[in-house]
């Protein structure tokens, strides 16, 4: 009997869509955060990070942020000084950019190859606090995951390595993605 039920259970999902849970994008005021503080917009050096005009290749890192099981969007324009062209969905820098930058709001961080930048640097360029008990404007124990695995310690120290998939969560657990498919060239 049990064997039959197990067989039925295992065969039931065939032909059905895979079970994937969507998490809604947060829209409360705390979820709408500007991409850069005035110092970054002006291209000043931030915590040792210099704003340069190198247009060479970059490597991709993907970060996802969740607050109370809602998505906190990582905006386009982090690490991008004025001026730029485009719109909130895709920026084209017209001035200098930093070793870590976002050109769209997909959570993909473009990192200069060889640059030793950390997640803390991204938040510094964003102008937002992050730490074991803080994620942007939200307080609470911050859970960090890299490649789907829990990472203890201060999330600011997480290095931005090529194709790393980093998830930070506060106020509720969301099963983290282990990987992300990057476009060619990143």
């Amino acid at each position, binding site marked *: 009997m049990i064997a039959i039920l197990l067989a039925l259970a295992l065969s039931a999902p065939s032909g059905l869509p*895979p*079970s*994937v849970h969507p*998490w809604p*994008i947060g829209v409360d005021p705390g979820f709408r955060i500007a991409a850069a503080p005035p110092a970054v917009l002006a291209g000043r050096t931030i915590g040792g990070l210099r704003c340069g005009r190198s247009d060479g290749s970059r490597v991709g890192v*993907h970060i996802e942020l969740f607050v109370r099981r*809602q998505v906190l*969007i990582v905006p386009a324009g982090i690490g991008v000084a004025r001026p730029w062209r485009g719109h909130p969905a895709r920026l084209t820098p017209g001035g200098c950019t930093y070793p870590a930058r976002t050109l769209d709001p997909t959570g993909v961080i473009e990192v200069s190859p060889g640059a030793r930048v950390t997640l803390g640097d991204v938040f510094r360029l964003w102008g937002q606090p992050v730490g074991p008990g803080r994620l942007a404007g939200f307080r609470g124990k911050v859970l960090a995951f890299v490649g789907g695995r829990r990472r203890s310690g201060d999330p600011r120290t997480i290095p931005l390595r090529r194709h790393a998939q980093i998830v930070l969560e506060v106020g509720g657990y969301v099963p983290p*993605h282990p990987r*992300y498919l990057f476009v060619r060239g990143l």
Partner: protein
Amino acid sequence: MAIRLASVVALAAVALAFAGTARADADPASDILYVRNMFLPISTTVSPAAAAKLRAAISRAHAAGRPIKVALIAGRTDLGGVPQLFGNPVYYARFLDAELQFLYSGRLLVVMPQGAGLAQGGRAIADKAVVAAKPAPGGDGLAETAAQLVDEITTGKPVAPSGGTVTVATGSASHSKSSGFPVGLVTAVAIFAVFVLIAVGGVLLAKRRNA
């Protein structure tokens, strides 16, 4: 013995119920549609002319009071962290719609090489034209199909395919809502319930024997 067996079965049921549950948000389209009405694929190119045509169709829909957002998904890369949804436009439309639920209540159209899907309010919409859509290959094929579908959905009337690159079935659009979104969840819950019943039965049987 029966109690042990019941415990094992219950644990197996829990594992089965949650097996295969993946996570999101990691799909680029949701982040782009947060601020725009159109997501173009990043895995291939869409010509400016085809993009403009789709943009115009979306504008017409908004002007007609029938807002719509459109995502063109040409490859697995366009789905970022949920590539397993490639090839299933109906499910991805519902998925995307759920992600945008707090900021958008209009219709959401997804076009993939395998077909198209339409969703609103967390449910798929069984629109005849959408169900029958067979996009032409390439980014422009997806955009052409999407533009045509947006016009059909907006007007409720079939629109002649342009350039012969798109095949869309004619017929008035019916907007009956399917009840499909939680199919996987409902299946898992049903299976879980069956196993719990078995486990409870086993425990009661063991108690009766012991007594």
